[in-house]
């Protein structure tokens, strides 16, 4: 061993442990640093004279070692040795047996002395390589790798394929179920939203149905207030100067009462169901009434509503309630379109003019987000509003057309949208609802 290792002594530090008791050796290898290797030679006896079985002694060293162990004998391979550069004892046995067989059979072995050799080879234990984390790429060429554990793939190919297929199928199923569940959740959420919408719509329509009764309920106290105020006014001495302020106060009560009654009246007219009427409509008056109806809503939404009314006071014929519905819808749309822009810029303009044919033109302009490309805003159920039904403009169009007019909607040059409708002087009322 010393001879063999001598050429390497420059690169390697070699320590020879001889004449030590086996227990001592075992104890020492246990604490070896990681950058060492152990090359156990043959133990036949302790210095104490105890006879050892070499195989078992080596095994103890291998098992205890903190560093990888190598050997010059192959028989230890498979018992914890990383590798050996050696001929195989089994191979040598086979060669000798062949020779003996040749002799026994009387084969001519030639005149020369018969020497048959078994070449040395690098042999490594695949499991130990794995255990110590050695890469196979660093092995010398022609190294015989032993104790290769057959891979699962090689051993149970069909089973593995089947198992993989099942796993794949199950994964696909899980994914499909997850997707389905997500879809269902979305659908449920949408359904719930729609249900809320419908419920809200129902409440609104019930409110509409009840508007007459509600107007009645509010008109009762208004009646009482008005009559009391008039009675009070009659009780106050007419000419006495000290009662001037009291008379004024009562007069204000009467005026405010009338104003409240006017609001109720407008609301009731708007909510009124029933037969369409054809009567002269003062378009300017309708714009003013609608603006008055929306006054608090406009203030709440910080919108500045400006009206630019035609001097000629255009008069058309039609159903004032329906035309007001169109106006209300267009103004509400314009208000919604400006929800996202800064409060100071929310300007809404309603202007009226006398059209060339003597009819009326009404324009509702906003400074909002404008119309979106794609669908026509007049398509039924098309909406860009979160809680919209998509019916407002469709109904407006139907009403305006029933009055023989036209309704157009376009983006304005300076941003925002402009809705414009014309009503002819002599409104034609077709049968349309």
């Amino acid at each position, binding site marked *: 061993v010393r001879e063999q290792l001598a050429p390497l002594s420059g690169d390697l530090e070699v320590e020879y442990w001889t004449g030590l008791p086996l227990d001592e050796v075992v104890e020492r290898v246990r604490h070896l640093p990681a950058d060492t290797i152990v090359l156990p030679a043959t133990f036949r006896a302790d210095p104490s004279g105890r006879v050892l079985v070499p195989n078992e002694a080596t095994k103890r060293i291998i098992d205890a070692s903190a560093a990888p162990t190598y050997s010059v004998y192959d028989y230890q391979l498979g018992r914890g040795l990383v590798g050996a550069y050696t001929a195989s004892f089994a191979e040598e046995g086979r060669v000798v047996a062949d020779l003996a067989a040749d002799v026994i059979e009387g084969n001519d072995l030639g005149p020369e002395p018969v020497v048959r050799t078994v070449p040395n080879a690098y042999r490594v234990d695949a499991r130990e390589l794995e255990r110590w984390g050695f890469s196979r790429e660093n092995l010398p060429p022609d190294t015989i790798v032993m104790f290769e554990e057959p891979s699962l793939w090689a051993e149970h190919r069909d089973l593995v394929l089947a198992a993989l297929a099942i796993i794949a199928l199950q994964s696909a199923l899980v994914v499909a179920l997850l997707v389905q569940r997500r879809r269902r959740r979305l659908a449920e959420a949408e359904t719930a939203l729609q249900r809320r919408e419908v419920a809200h719509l129902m409440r609104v329509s019930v409110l509409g149905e009840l508007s*007459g009764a509600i107007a*009645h309920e509010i008109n*009762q106290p208004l*009646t*009482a*207030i*008005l*009559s*009391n105020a008039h009675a009070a006014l009659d009780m106050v001495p007419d000419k006495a100067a000290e009662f001037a302020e009291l008379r004024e106060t009562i007069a204000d009560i009467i005026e405010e*009462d009338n104003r409240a009654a006017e609001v109720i009246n407008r609301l009731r007219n708007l909510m009124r169901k029933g037969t369409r009427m054809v009567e002269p409509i003062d378009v300017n008056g309708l714009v003013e009434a609608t603006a008055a109806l929306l006054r608090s809503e406009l203030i709440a939404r910080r919108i500045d509503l400006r009206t630019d009314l035609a001097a000629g006071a255009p008069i058309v014929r039609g159903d004032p309630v329906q035309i007001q519905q169109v106006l209300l819808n267009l103004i509400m749309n314009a208000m919604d379109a400006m929800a996202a822009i800064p409060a100071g810029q929310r300007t809404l303009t309603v202007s009226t003019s006398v059209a060339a044919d003597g009819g009326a033109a009404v324009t509702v302009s906003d400074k909002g987000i404008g119309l979106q490309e794609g669908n026509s805003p007049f398509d039924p159920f098309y909406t860009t509003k979160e809680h919209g039904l998509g019916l407002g403009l469709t109904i407006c169009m139907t009403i305006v057309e029933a009055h023989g007019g036209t309704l157009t909607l376009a983006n304005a040059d300076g941003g925002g949208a402009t809705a414009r409708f014309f009503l002819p002087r002599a409104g034609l009322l077709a049968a349309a609802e």
Partner: protein
Amino acid sequence: MSAPVFTVFLVDDDAGVLKALARRLSVRGYEVRSYSSPEHFLEEHDPALPGCAVLDLSMPGLNGLELQAALGAAGAQRPVIFLTGQGDVPTSVQAMKAGAVDFLTKPVRDEALLDAIARAEAKDRDGRQTEAEMAVIRARLATLTRREREVLDHVLAGRLNKQIAWELGTVEQTIKVHRRRVMDKLGVHSMRDLMQLSSKVGLLR
């Protein structure tokens, strides 16, 4: 010393409205009687009192129109003014056809209410005057003898004395005497007055 007191009968199920209207009309010098239920009003109603009824259109139990009909059925010529919180055209037409003085929407404007009551007052006064005149005429008619009444009917039918005499189997001179007595009893001096009076009580068709 003064004109007979004109009473306004108020019927409204809303206590606040009832009280306020009563106060308003009292201040204007009207005698006011308030009823919160139409049934109560019908029970206590005295057609002999000059006045008008101001009825709320929608009340539990009898509504205004039904109350108007019930008054008519009871033979009362009471002028009626309707008040409503929700005036619709068909109902107002129905009310006016049934003889209402006016149909006013709540909250009723003061001038409108007072004006309607003034018209109701006039209507009631005229009605009562006519009624009184008719009572006088009916009393006078009741004093005619059977033969005199027969002659009157023939005269109103436009027949000449000669024809009437022939119809009744007597002579023209007798018919002339009957006619004079009829004119005296009815207090008229000309044929024209007789026709007018007869028309008032529905004798003339």
